[in-house]
């Protein structure tokens, strides 16, 4: 019974230690990841129903295909990969550690046979002399040796960069670190979006999951601007932001410009330029009103929908306006506005007015008054992505470890050289953990140098 249990536990352990499982998981992750790149992720149901049948929609939905990378089975695969990684490392690391920390100091006949590079050196001298010579030679040309004596022979052992054997484990550990960083971000961070009209301020952010987060300070948008290349392609989106904490603008974050590749960060929360638009409210319209019978023109400003009193008891409100009427009125250009004019004691009359370039056009309406539209001050809102991710530095640490580990694992080699000194001469042996061809050259080089010396 106990052996049975032990056998089962052993089997589970071996399963999680196996490299076949890793290959299966890696290829499996690669394959299932494709699904989420073909099916658009995180769209509202009606978008899907436009192209999918009801049954397919329900099937995909229950399989989590619409938010695949957060579905339970995808996360499970990632956890399995991590578990596999941890088990495999626990199983193998001690063996590798032993190679690093307790090197084989003596090259006996048996061990010699297992080495790829061995050479008998024809050197003259006593055992003591040869030992000293080899020791100083190895120190100068390779690495300082450890010297032991056994069965009447001296054994010298020297090695270079033994720790690079740990590179693979640094890579694997880095993956776990990145994973932990991602988990910290998903538990303690949030992502959201705010839009701030020019002149406005916000102190709350709505996250993607719909929660409201109180920032504890205010972010004010002083100004937003967009510029274009001659081709019409956008050149720059720029918001001027000010952070106001405790009622005071924060030094350094006052009227700070934010562009697409240059965000603002305050107290661990970062604001990124992501979109913009015309603010619904807040546009200011500029008009000129002149009495046809004479008199000085009067400059007026109006907000959208606002009823402004005109000289002589009439009223005017601007319904909508544009800085360029070309798309709406053939043969005209410049600013134009759709207005509602109410003469004193009369009924409202809707019509269009243009700039002073079109005097006769504007003269068709307005009774005694000649009204021209001079333009408007448009107001924008800026759309900012807001992110707070306390795990991001853990992720970068993991990435750094990964690069270091990969360099150790791929481009460095644990090189070992043994020398056995007996009365009859010196036998040199060597091996390397990587690039055997490269080490052979290095080894032959050593042999040549000793023979010459």
């Amino acid at each position: 019974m106990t052996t049975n249990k032990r056998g089962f536990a052993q089997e589970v352990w071996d399963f999680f230690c196996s490299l076949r499982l890793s290959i299966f998981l890696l290829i499996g992750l690669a394959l299932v990841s494709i699904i989420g790149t073909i099916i658009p992720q995180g769209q509202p149901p009606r978008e899907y129903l436009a192209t999918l049948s009801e049954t397919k929609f329900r099937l995909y939905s229950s399989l989590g295909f619409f938010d695949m990378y957060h579905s339970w089975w995808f996360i499970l695969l990632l956890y399995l990969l991590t578990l596999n990684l941890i088990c495999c490392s626990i199983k193998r690391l001690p063996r590798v550690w032993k190679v690093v920390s307790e090197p084989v100091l003596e090259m006996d006949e048996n061990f010699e046979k297992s080495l790829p590079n061995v050479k008998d050196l024809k050197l003259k001298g006593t055992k003591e002399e040869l030992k000293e010579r080899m020791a100083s030679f190895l120190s100068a040309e390779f690495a300082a040796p450890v010297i032991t004596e056994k069965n009447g022979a001296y054994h010298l052992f020297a090695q270079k960069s033994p720790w690079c054997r740990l590179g693979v484990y640094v890579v694997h550990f880095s993956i776990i670190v990145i994973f932990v960083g991602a988990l910290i971000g998903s538990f303690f961070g949030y992502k959201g979006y705010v839009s701030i009209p020019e002149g406005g301020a916000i102190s709350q952010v709505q996250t993607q999951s719909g929660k409201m987060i109180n920032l504890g300070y205010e972010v004010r948008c002083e100004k937003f601007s967009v510029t274009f290349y001659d081709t019409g392609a956008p050149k720059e989106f720029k918001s001027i932001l000010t952070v106001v904490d405790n009622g005071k603008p924060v030094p350094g974050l006052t009227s700070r410009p934010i562009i697409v590749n240059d965000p603002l960060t305050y107290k661990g929360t970062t604001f990124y330029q992501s979109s913009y638009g015309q603010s619904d409210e807040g546009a200011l319209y500029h008009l000129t009103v002149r009495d046809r019978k004479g008199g000085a023109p009067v400059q007026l400003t109006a907000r959208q929908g606002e009823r402004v009193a005109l000289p002589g008891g009439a009223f005017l409100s601007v319904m909508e306006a544009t800085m360029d009427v070309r798309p709406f009125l053939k043969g005209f250009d410049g600013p134009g506005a759709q207005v509602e004019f109410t003469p004193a004691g009369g009924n409202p009359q809707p019509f269009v007015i243009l700039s002073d370039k079109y005097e006769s056009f504007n003269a068709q309406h307005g009774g005694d008054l000649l009204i021209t539209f001079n333009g408007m001050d448009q107001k924008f809102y800026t759309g900012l992505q807001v992110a707070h991710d306390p795990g991001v530095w853990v992720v970068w640490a993991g990435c750094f470890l990964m690069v270091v580990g990969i360099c150790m694992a791929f481009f460095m080699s644990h090189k070992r050289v043994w020398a056995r000194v007996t009365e009859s001469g010196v036998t040199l042996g060597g091996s390397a953990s990587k690039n055997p061809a490269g080490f052979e050259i290095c080894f032959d080089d050593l042999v040549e140098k000793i023979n010459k010396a």
Partner: protein
Amino acid sequence: MSSSMLFNVTMVLYMVSTCIFFAFLASRSKAVGLGGTYAALFGFLVQTAAIGLRWKESYDQGHGHAPLSNLFESVVFFSWTIVLIFLFIDFKYKYRAIGFFVIPFALFGMAWAQLGLDSGIEPLVPALQSNWLMYHVITCFLGYAAFAVACGISIMYLIREKMEQGGGNVQAGGLLSMFPSIRVLDDLNYKAIMIGFPLLSLGIITGAAWANYAWGTYWSWDPKETWSLIVWFVYAAFLHARITRGWVGRRAAILSVIGFAATIFCYLGVNLFLSGLHSYGR
């Protein structure tokens, strides 16, 4: 002289190089093989000059930026990196025959760019105005190029293995005798991927760093990101497969070809068929 003319010269030189490599396989003359390598090297130098000139031309037009911003420029750069990695491996290991299986990738890229793609120099849209663009694109493409070389080597491996199994007499001659041995090809495949994998990892990391800097998320499962991760998984599987018994050789070669197919999809397929943040490459 314009960069476009130099790109044409480059294309012709890669074509010449491919032909010489073919002649090399047929003639088995070492001198011919060296000729192929030198033609490729000369093409590479001309292309380097052309890329530099195009960079300068963008400054002359008033919106200077590195020539890495649209599909034309990236295809040209891709073919440049393929030749770079090829020359590196060629000069280091001196197996000339590989050229016949690798330079055509570069030739194809140049021909497609010159004949089929819009070569206009466009100003950068706001999302691309960052130095990260350069770090990200260069590391990714060097990685892709190493995978292209690995793919060429794997195809050689599969052909040679097939012929050996089919009883073709390798020693007696034929095209095959210029191929490195199967063991060497397997090793070269691994070496090329050992160059590519770290570069792709760096490419993904710099991409994540840039995304975090510009958009506030280092990873958003955008199709391009996901595909680069898929490629990364495939090559990670390749590396582990080599350690286990029974996966060296043929299966590793097949995995390397699949990996490159995924790489090409990541590079082009995603832009052409799927939508996402990277679709400006269109």
